[in-house]
């Protein structure tokens, strides 16, 4: 297993920069997730590390060695794609053996057999070994694809949205399996996704990408609780963090005068520049509490049942605000309700730049 370092990577396609000055380290045995919307540069980063593309500038190190001149095969990394590229007319066993039959590897028959057996056992596909891959379900095919990566015993696993084509239930199961696998092997995983739940649930650390740049790197806890800007704040978490534009005056953020004014803790207020005017208040739905004595008042615009809880959309004038409440709490659409915002959980962003002012 291995460490990966990307140093000041820029990748241009004609004049468009897909990646700009990207730097990040993935530790040995770490599960690192690159998270971002379509077009953020996630897949491009993976392809550069795999050696399928070359960066326009910058360097890539695996275990401290610059691999810029190495071929994809020499880098000894395994790629798992969203679309399982299996050989359809071959059995699962043949698909698993295939990467080991390359002449460069010079593996004995026994070694090949034992590696395939171990991978099949780990992925619970032993009963499928003699089946042709075109007769497998989506989840089984993706397990075989992962198995094909495992048998190689690569230094690094690179995964490009491997769960995207599976249905929600299966994704949930495979998420846990992948994490289990990574922990068992103490493998280095670099995993690309646009799904924040996948990132939050599996990652040791997350690197959030947007427009080809790293926006923030941190543990899921850091990314969720201390997002560095409004992009990260709204991209991570469901429902998205409430953002309310306001002005900062006399220690308060005024969103709707007289109706939605939120005091800011003194130690936070002191850190803000006094001539700062436009701020955006950020608060997560679970930090908005409904109930009498809340001090603020809104109108219920909509209620979504989520089983274990409900998500209530409140309106205060034209501003909307989502709150998470227990499932058993009775809520009437179009009724007035009191609510409170947990002052300790507030985030403040500069409206102009989107930067978090209290982080």
């Amino acid at each position, binding site marked *: 297993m291995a460490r990966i370092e990307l140093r000041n990577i820029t990748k241009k396609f004609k004049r468009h920069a897909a990646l700009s000055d990207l730097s990040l380290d993935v530790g040995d045995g770490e599960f690192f997730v690159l998270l971002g*919307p*379509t077009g953020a540069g996630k897949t491009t980063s993976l392809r550069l590390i795999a050696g399928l593309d070359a960066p326009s500038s910058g360097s890539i190190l695996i275990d401290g060695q610059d691999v810029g001149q190495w071929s994809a095969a020499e880098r000894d990394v395994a790629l798992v794609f969203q679309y399982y590229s299996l050989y359809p007319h071959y059995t699962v066993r043949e698909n698993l053996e295939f990467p080991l039959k390359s002449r460069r590897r010079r593996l004995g028959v026994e070694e090949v057999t034992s590696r395939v057996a171990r991978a099949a056992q780990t992925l619970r596909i032993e009963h499928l070994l003699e089946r042709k891959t075109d007769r497998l379900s989506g989840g089984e095919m993706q397990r075989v694809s992962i198995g094909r990566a495992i048998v190689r015993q690569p230094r690094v696993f690179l995964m490009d949205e491997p769960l995207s084509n599976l*249905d*929600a*239930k299966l994704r*949930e*199961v495979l*998420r*846990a399996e992948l*994490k*289990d696998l990574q*922990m068992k092997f103490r493998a280095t995983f670099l995993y690309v996704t*646009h*799904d*924040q*739940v996948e990132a*939050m*649930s*599996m990652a040791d650390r997350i690197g959030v990408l947007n427009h080809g740049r790293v926006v923030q790197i941190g543990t*899921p*806890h850091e990314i*969720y*609780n201390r997002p560095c800007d409004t992009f990260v704040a*709204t*991209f*991570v*978490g*469901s*429902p*998205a963090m409430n953002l309310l534009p306001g002005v900062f005056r006399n220690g308060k953020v005024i969103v709707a005068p007289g109706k939605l004014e939120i005091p800011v803790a003194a130690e936070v207020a002191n850190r803000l520049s006094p001539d700062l005017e436009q701020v955006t208040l950020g608060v*997560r739905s*679970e930090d908005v509490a409904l109930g009498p004595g809340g001090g603020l008042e809104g109108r219920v*615009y*909509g209620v*979504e*049942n*989520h*089983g*274990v809880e409900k*998500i209530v*959309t409140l309106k205060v004038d034209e501003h909307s605000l989502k709150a*998470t409440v227990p*499932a058993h709490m009775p809520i009437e*659409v179009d009724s007035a309700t009191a609510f409170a915002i947990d002052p300790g959980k507030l985030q403040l962003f500069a409206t102009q730049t989107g930067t978090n002012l209290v982080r």
Partner: protein
Amino acid sequence: MASIVLRDVEKYFGESYVVRRLNLEIRDREFLVLLGPSGCGKTTTLRAIAGLEEIDSGEILIDGQPMQSRQAADRDIAFVFQLFALYPHLTAYENIAFPLRATNERKAVVDRRVREIARALRIDGLLGKRPSALSGGDMQRVAIGRALVRRPKALLMDEPMGALDAKLREEMRAELKHIHLENEATTVYVTHDQIEAMAMADRIAIMHDGVLQQVGVPSEVYQYPANLFVAQFVGSPIMNVVTGAVRPGDGCTDVVLGEHDAVQRFPVELGRRVTEQQQGRNDPLALGVRPEAVLVALRPADGYFPAEAHIIERLGPYDIVDLKVGTQLFRARTASGHVKKAGDAVWARLDERQTHFFDQSTGESLRIRL
């Protein structure tokens, strides 16, 4: 406005049935969601209501009128597909106006109706644009506007948000529900996404293998699933299911979980009711427990059994912790940061009032709640 009634509706493709003996009533102004995995027959059902698909037996009534002899166009129903299907060469305005123009409506009326619906959908600023200049969410709004503009009796939607990304879906969900509240068109909405169903539906009808499994308001379906399929299809993370052997305990009923992995104490009443239900057979049950009903303590406590924390998913507002209990794995929902790390020894208990009991062979709920 309309009520829709399906009576003994069946649909076959060759030997195999796609929809079997379906009885369902969709009430006037209701938002009903047909939920199920792919291939469960939900889209076929929707298309049958629309008149796009013929049924082999049974009847479909709209406002009490049998529909079999009527063409799709004569059913006064609007359909919204997953792929927006807009006319690319027409502006958003013309796309929405199209169904009205086809009925030779007066120009002033068309204009008023298009602007009204566009305002409700918050696309009044985009009316001059062609579909190619619109985002996915706006295209879907235009498609919905086109469906609603002629004030159909019913609106049928087939995974209308399937092509949108997660964030947009979240926003559109609330919007769509609000549009429904304002328009009051009877709506049948097909999806495989249980979150969408729970969030928007007045009632959910869950289908599996062509058979209707349960119909109910979201909280019923979540709290009182009729069988194991519904129990595990609705809710995320998926409900834990474990074999439970019931036996008398010391002033309680003991349930042995899994392969003697743990023993959980339940009130005596459970034993009595299980015996009653099973008429003395004493077959093992399947216990269903949602992650929020698996209680986790950091120290030994009365009624708790030992467990080992395995994978911890820190999702932000809460954690999902996998617990190893002997050969079993239970997923528990805990406060964020409650369990520190994988490998920690913890103690767990199933919340008896939130435990579901199923017949292990049929999967049917025994309808026992403590």
